[in-house]
């Protein structure tokens, strides 16, 4: 306790949220943000991803926290919501992406921001989820990690602008992997900061309905094929499809995934041809829907 950290003037946060999740966000996220150490002021932008009405009627200021709602006026996916926020707010140096049902450790923001400030080529700094920790692969010395999860990350604005933000073809799941990979390809680094802790009480036991579970399967599966296609072209696509075949999903599910991918392919999304040999330890597919090694 009582680490001396240089105070940060101002931090911008984007939180993509719908009305149903707002109460919890107010209880946990807002409160924990208001208690952050080492930060003078925090601007939290609530992106109303449903595009409908106004959901937040609470106070604009909670201690050092200011809350504002922005509305893309249509339903948007995860990536698109943040692209919209980025366009609207135009954050100067960095911004933080955070999930609504998170209780941030008091040092989380400063850990995230101070880490990205350390090096100019740190484009993404990822926070750490507890208590259900993701067994991430990262270099304990350099803290480099193949990809960062979008539940809690700091992003360098310059980089985000350069790469055109998230690829909104993903809608949900995997867009963070894609952003991370483009980070590596652009010569930046993706960093994991295990000291930036956010408590995310979701997963096994809480608010995880079978519907959501299903959606996660669907999007992560479709997006697995898409991302492999995006980085390894047709060859990658057929490899991914072969892997899909072996998965224990029902046939109709697989068919739906393939159909959805075919539709996406018709829109001719941008493809990085040839595959990124230079970054093979970062941009890699280790198995079905697996983009890094798991720690035990």
């Amino acid at each position: 306790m009582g680490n001396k950290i240089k105070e940060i003037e101002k931090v911008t946060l984007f939180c993509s949220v719908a009305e149903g999740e707002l109460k919890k966000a107010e209880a946990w996220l807002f409160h924990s943000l208001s208690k952050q150490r080492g930060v003078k002021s925090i601007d939290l932008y609530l992106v109303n991803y449903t595009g409908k009405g106004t959901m937040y009627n609470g106070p604009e200021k909670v201690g050092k926290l200011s809350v504002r709602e922005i509305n893309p006026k249509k339903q948007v996916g995860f990536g698109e919501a943040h692209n919209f926020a980025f366009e609207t707010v135009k954050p100067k140096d960095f911004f933080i992406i955070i999930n609504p049902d998170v209780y941030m450790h008091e040092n989380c923001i400063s850990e995230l921001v101070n880490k990205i400030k350390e090096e100019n080529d740190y484009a993404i700094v990822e926070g750490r989820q507890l208590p259900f920790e993701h067994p991430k692969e990262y270099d304990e010395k350099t803290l480099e990690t193949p990809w960062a999860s979008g539940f809690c990350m700091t992003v360098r604005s310059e980089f985000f602008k350069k790469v055109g933000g998230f690829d909104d073809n993903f809608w949900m799941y995997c867009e963070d992997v894609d952003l991370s990979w483009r980070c590596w390809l652009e010569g930046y680094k993706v960093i994991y900061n295990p000291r930036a802790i956010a408590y995310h009480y979701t997963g096994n036991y809480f608010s995880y309905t079978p519907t959501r579970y299903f959606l996660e399967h669907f999007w992560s599966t479709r997006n697995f094929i898409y991302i492999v296609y995006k980085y390894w072209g047709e060859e990658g696509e057929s490899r991914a499809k072969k892997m899909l075949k072996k998965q224990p999903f029902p046939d109709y599910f697989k068919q739906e995934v393939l159909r959805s991918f075919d539709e996406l392919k018709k829109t001719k999304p941008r493809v990085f041809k040839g595959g990124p040999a230079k970054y093979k330890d970062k941009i890699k597919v280790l198995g079905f829907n697996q983009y890094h090694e798991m720690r035990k």
Partner: protein
Amino acid sequence: MKKYEVFRLCRDAKTIELIAAQNKEFGFEHQKLITGPDYFDFLDQIIETCEGNYALVVHDDVFLPINIEHKIDKAISDMDKEFGKEGWGVAGNAGVEYFNYEAVRYIKDPHSAVVPNSSRPLPVISIDGNTLLLNLKTIRKNKIKMPKTIRGFHMYDFLLLVECYKAGLVSAVTPALYVVHNSGGNQKDFDQFIVSDVFTSYWKENFINRNIYTINGNIEIKNTIDYLKRNSKDKRKDFYSIIDKAIDSVRKKDSVKTINIITRTQLKRSNSLKRLLDSVKAGSLMPDTNLKIKVILAVNNCTLDEKSLVEVETRLKSDYEGLEINIIFCPEGEHFPRVSSIKKAVQSIESGENEFVWIVDDDDFIFPPSLDDLNKLLTPGTVFIGEASSFSESWDEKKSFPLRSSIQSINYHTNNSYRNFFGENHVPVSAVIYPQLVLKRIFEEYELKGDYFEDYALIFIAQNIASVEMYPVHLVGISVHGNNTIVSTDRARWDYSYATFMSEIVNKGLVKKHNFEIAEKAKRSEGGFGAHGVAEAELNAIKARKIYKIIKGIEKAKRAPRKLKEIKQKSLHSIRRNGLRGFAVTVIKHTYRTKGKVWQFPNSNNEEYHQWIAKNEKWDVSRAHYELENFKYKPLISVIVPVYNVDPKWLDKCVESVLKQQYENWELCLYDDASPSEETRKCLLKWKKVDPRIKVTFGKKNLHISGASNVAIKEAKGEFIALLDNDDEISSDALFEVVKVLNKNKNIDMIYSDEDKLDLDGKRSGPFFKPDWSLDMFLSTMYTCHFGVYRKSIIDKIGGFREGYEGSQDYDLVLRFVEQSKDERIAHIPKILYHWRMIETSTAYNPNSKLYAYEAGKKVVAEFLQRNKIKAQVKDGRSLGFYHVEREIEGSPLVSIVIPFKDNVDYLEKCVDSILKKTSYKNYEIILVDNQSSEEKTKKYLQKIQKNSKIRVLNFNKPFNYSAINNFAVSEAKGKYILFLNNDTKVINEDWLSRMLEQAEREEVGAVGALLLFPDKTIQHAGVVIQENVSPVHVYYGISINSKGYVDLMDVIRDYSAVTAACMMIRKNLFEKVGGFDEKDFAIAYNDIDLCLKLRKEGYKIIYTPYARLYHYAGKTRGDDDELREKNPKRYAQFVQEKKNLKDKWLEYIPNDPFYNPNLK
């Protein structure tokens, strides 16, 4: 008004009988025992008609506790308490609970071993129907009904729950409804149902989810989820959100409860303590929990100096502003700080029944979302046991976070907590929330010394002095870091603690020796505790299970003798009648005799028939579904229903009966023949939406029945066409039975079944039990009627129905159909698969009103004869609806009438006289075979009669051997045809011989029999039916032909398996070909039966004609069985032997008499 009623859904009538007997014994007489194919309907009926505000609905294999009344009361009060009187819909005893999606079973059945230790209702996301308590007040208030589209006996439990949740009513399982259930259901049935169209389409229409968790396994439905944007027109809901919402809304918060979190700490691990406090803070911030959260830090063995302590305290209070944190210090030098710090903390709390204590150590953390439910779940005076997850961690104390933290597979599930009561420390201390008063009392009354077993000591004592609730809420994360330091480094302290606590609890009488023995045994047999332990293993077992045996009691019931076996004789008679819009249907009056008494099945409802239904229409669902699943051939069957102005009330019933089909590959082609009735058309439009298999077409102009049916048939896609009238119903197994037949023989072209009638109240009467296919009978009357299923390729080939035969268009269709098929390709199902509704407005009540239909029928038969080059004319039958095909006799072959005799010339004379006087066919000879007559009178008569050139007398001077006598006579006979005739007969009608000859002349015919009457005009012979064990029985024996309204199926030309040789005609060369009568094995009896069976085996028909009538004074010459036994034991013994010979010879060949309906046995 009754508070509740108990309904038992029984699989069949036999079961009802069995249960009724049991109920009487155990005082359950008030239970309503119901059976039928449709639980959906039952539930709707119960909701609608049950007297009382609650209904308990149980399966037939459920054993209820004898004091179930009290349990129902308790279930109701528990549910009311938990969810509010207005908040719940259904209570049960098994299901998948809401919190963890895990199976809970307050039930003993073949699978479950462990019952969860909760006495409170647990909300569920699916429920098992073995026992359901319906809260009719709320169900009625919310107008809950079962989904209309689904019928049968699967998932009705789940769907009731779904409908309740849709209305915001929670359903739960409660130990108050504990039962012993003798069966675990049929997994195959379930698996099949969940992929059925009706179920999946219901689901898809209502919900977006693909996964449903049920006690029988996870169901995955091919549902469409809009991944990107929900279509605004799509009003479907997320099933689980509906449940969330319902449970949230009924969990009205009680008065504020205070949870005092007691955390024992040395203030050494400040970072992990911070994590705990973070989690507590997050919990306290949860909206609407109605809980007050306080923290008591019980500091012991603290090494910090005073100044640092103050610093820590100040820091904590500022960091966790708004959270009440009290710090207490355990007295220095305290020998057992871990237990005494709790004691001190507990005593520091101001006592109150809403004060609770949650002991959470400083390296654990709480799951804030769990607080959502706690206010409602915590009960004054009751110890609450929740669940915990363990995390394997490594900490670097310099850092404010664990270096590593991964959730372990070891979770403390409430289903395993029972172990605690058997001497095993299984519940982690932080998974328990105690009422402060309970802990206070424990510390007052028990001397707890020792440390490491304190948590176990507390829960052990608590469960003895207070009630304990287990509820599957995940309360805490437990940090497991490093090795188990206590056990390895402080073993002695561990052991001494254990000894001290055990000594205390044994001394206070809380533990008996045998508990430990049980515990030891349990430990040995069960091994370690795995993840979700028993619950998981159980769930896997459920998933893996196959088919289960039906309970023994039911099996026994099935073996019970059928009373109807006692019925000896029956008769059938039918009235040809004209159905609605001209469909001709045969109505059968059915008479049978039992124990000398004549019973009748009148056309109205009657008890006898209902008893028959109850006993014979066995509803062995699992068997049927097992068979269904194993069908290799599942053709599409198009059910054709031409609709015209029918009352929607009847049309609904008609369509519903199709929807209820167990066999699912059908389409229902409803063709509206330009009905003027708006109502009828509206009704059709309604049904069109219900199931994609229902196809509705509206005709623009009225085509009448044949035209309308043809249009509908043209559009049908099925391999088979089934005809159904728009106000009739088919039984739920109708198509199943049809396909079952097709699976036995794929070549079958036409299938028909038995049928009965429905009155306006849906009561059944007037069964028509038909024989198997007999073209001769069919030419006499259109008896196949309903239910008729026809191969479409043949229907197409013959161009469907023809116009101009209205009233008999189906008769015409079948006759043209069978021309394209073969006798062996026409199958009969001896089950009532079709219910014809008697409606006053139809012509059903007055068969005479539509004579034109009858005339059309005559035309139809005549055309058949013409097409098939049969020289015959169609005459009127005995009554409307019956025809008599009279064939032309080719040439005038000589018939030898063989009459063996031994004295008794009075009879002989009458017999011979009647032949000579009456017979119109003139080319015959009479061969009288004298078998050792001795009377003078006989000699005289013979002398006299020999003068007649038509008569020859032969002598057979050997002991009586009927076969030998006749064989001998045949060898002497000159005729091309032989007529065997008993000497005690007398001709009635003049053309008797012609009528027999016209049949005998047919190449396909082997033997021909006649109608023989007793002098009192009751029937002696109208054909012989071979019953079980090859027992030949004379049908209609003893029935008067003059009985009132008597119009009988015995009065038509038809096939039988055998006819009596008392009057039988056969071609001489054929007789010789099959070896004549068997002189060796059938010297005196059954020689005629044996002969007929030999002929049948060679492929010849045995024809019975009622148009040859004779009196037969049977028994007068040889006496009956009893007389024979007394007077001539030797011959009687021979008779018995020959009966055995018959059985031995033909048992394999005749499993079932095709020409007699097995239901008439």
